[in-house]
């Protein structure tokens, strides 16, 4: 595997191989010295055209734990402000000698273009409304640690702004690869107009599915992407789709709660639910570093692509 651009490119065996490796890296992170020399001499650069805290920090932590050198490129303080194109920016960075580029961009498909332009490995850290594959892998890894190696038969509700969410798409694909059955739960305006071929069911009423699900995966309503009047008011949305303590109490006692962050505590997901015993939210963040270590190792370390 040279690049990680989309969960769509991975079959079940490839997903499982990455998650198996993530286990090894989670062990490394638990040590007194949570660092191994595996990627010594390699350089990983993060190129973020959209703001991000956890994804960028998570990748940089992962690279440092593997002893790689890291460079960070913040668009706000760069020549992009002076009008430099994506192509020129990417070519300039490549000329400094890098092994992997972690790309986040507001345009869907931007990482695919970058992968065609440069020799280094490209990792999609979120492109527009398209995909966010490492988030999906860390979600699957987190859930797998609690559900056993397979997710066969596991029922997952992904609740929220499906239409604007790259996480919904990637995570749905990844969970499905491992055998889970995914339901999108949102008002009709926040469901993509066409779901042709997507292996999902759709529900418009959260209260209908609450009692049947094994996982409640809550998404943030992306006000910055809403643009058009898709919702009358956020308040009305939260009244019907917010994961309140009262709704959580109607779930099965062993239903897990997940959220990719950043969260809007309160209306979107109640504090006592986020911090409750069935919440995997904090674990998702820790596991994110291990999963990104596995991705970096697979792409530029293990030599799996050398043979």
């Amino acid at each position, binding site marked *: 595997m040279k690049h990680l651009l989309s969960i769509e490119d991975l079959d079940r065996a490839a997903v499982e191989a990455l998650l198996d490796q993530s286990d090894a890296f989670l*062990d490394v992170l638990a040590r007194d010295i949570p660092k191994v*020399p595996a*990627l010594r001499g390699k350089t990983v650069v993060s190129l973020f055209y959209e703001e991000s805290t956890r994804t960028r920090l998570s990748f940089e932590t992962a690279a440092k734990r593997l002893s790689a050198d890291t460079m960070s490129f913040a668009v706000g303080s760069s020549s992009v402000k002076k009008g430099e194109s994506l192509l020129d920016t990417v070519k300039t960075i490549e000329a400094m000698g890098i092994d992997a580029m972690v790309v986040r961009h507001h345009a869907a498909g931007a990482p695919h273009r970058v992968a065609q332009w440069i020799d280094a490995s490209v990792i999609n850290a979120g492109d527009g409304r398209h995909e966010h594959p490492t988030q999906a892998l860390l979600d699957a890894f987190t859930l797998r640690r609690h559900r056993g190696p397979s997710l066969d038969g596991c029922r997952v509700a992904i609740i929220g702004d499906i239409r604007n969410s790259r996480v919904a798409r990637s995570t749905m694909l990844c969970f499905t690869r491992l055998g889970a059955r995914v339901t999108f739960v949102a008002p009709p305006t926040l469901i993509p107009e066409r779901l042709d071929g997507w292996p999902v069911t759709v529900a418009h009423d959260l209260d209908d599915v609450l009692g049947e699900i094994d996982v409640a995966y809550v998404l943030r309503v992306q006000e910055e992407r809403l643009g058009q009047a898709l919702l009358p008011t956020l308040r009305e949305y939260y009244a019907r789709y917010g994961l309140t303590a009262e709704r959580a109490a109607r779930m099965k006692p062993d239903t897990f709660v997940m959220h990719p962050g950043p969260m809007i505590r309160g209306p979107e997901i109640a504090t006592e639910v986020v911090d409750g015993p069935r919440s995997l939210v904090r674990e998702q963040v820790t596991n994110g570093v291990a999963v990104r270590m596995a991705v970096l*190792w697979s792409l530029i370390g293990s*030599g*799996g692509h050398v043979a």
Partner: protein
Amino acid sequence: MFRTRVFDASDLRRAHTRIAHEIVERNHGAQDLVLIGLHTRGPAIARRLAAAIASFEEVDVPVGSLDVAFYRDDIGLRNVQPLGPTEVPVDVTGRVVVLVDDVLFTGRTIRAALDAVTELGRPRAMQLAVLVDRGHRELPIRADFVGKNLPTGVGEDVRVRLSETDDVAEDAIELWAPDASGGSE
């Protein structure tokens, strides 16, 4: 192509017993020892050595396992994958660590293991026990305890089969000629 059987199950049992005695003799007892097996067969061999020591010395020596994939110097040159978990049940600082592996060849795995253990703590000393030393060292590394010194050609294949790790009824170590397919080490 099969060339010769180096060890059968009884030979292996005797080798384990002898190495266990040598380890205890060299260290004037079994206190402060910890046996750390290198994946994939090292942990099983380490457990056998610990069982032997327990039988005559009445000390339960802690046994750990070590994966050196992330410490290798050939990362990126070939497909390197982690082979198993690193689990060392005690703090190695101040103890005598005996690294345990099946076959000693170039020495590069052991070099990686020295680095890996160093990150777990600062042992008082590190020693090395192997079932077979087949020569062809590429680094200044030697074993303290050896089951058998086996002169080999570089292309030959030393095949270790243990009941715990290889799905065989009976333990064996065999030497195979270069044209054979499969196998390891």
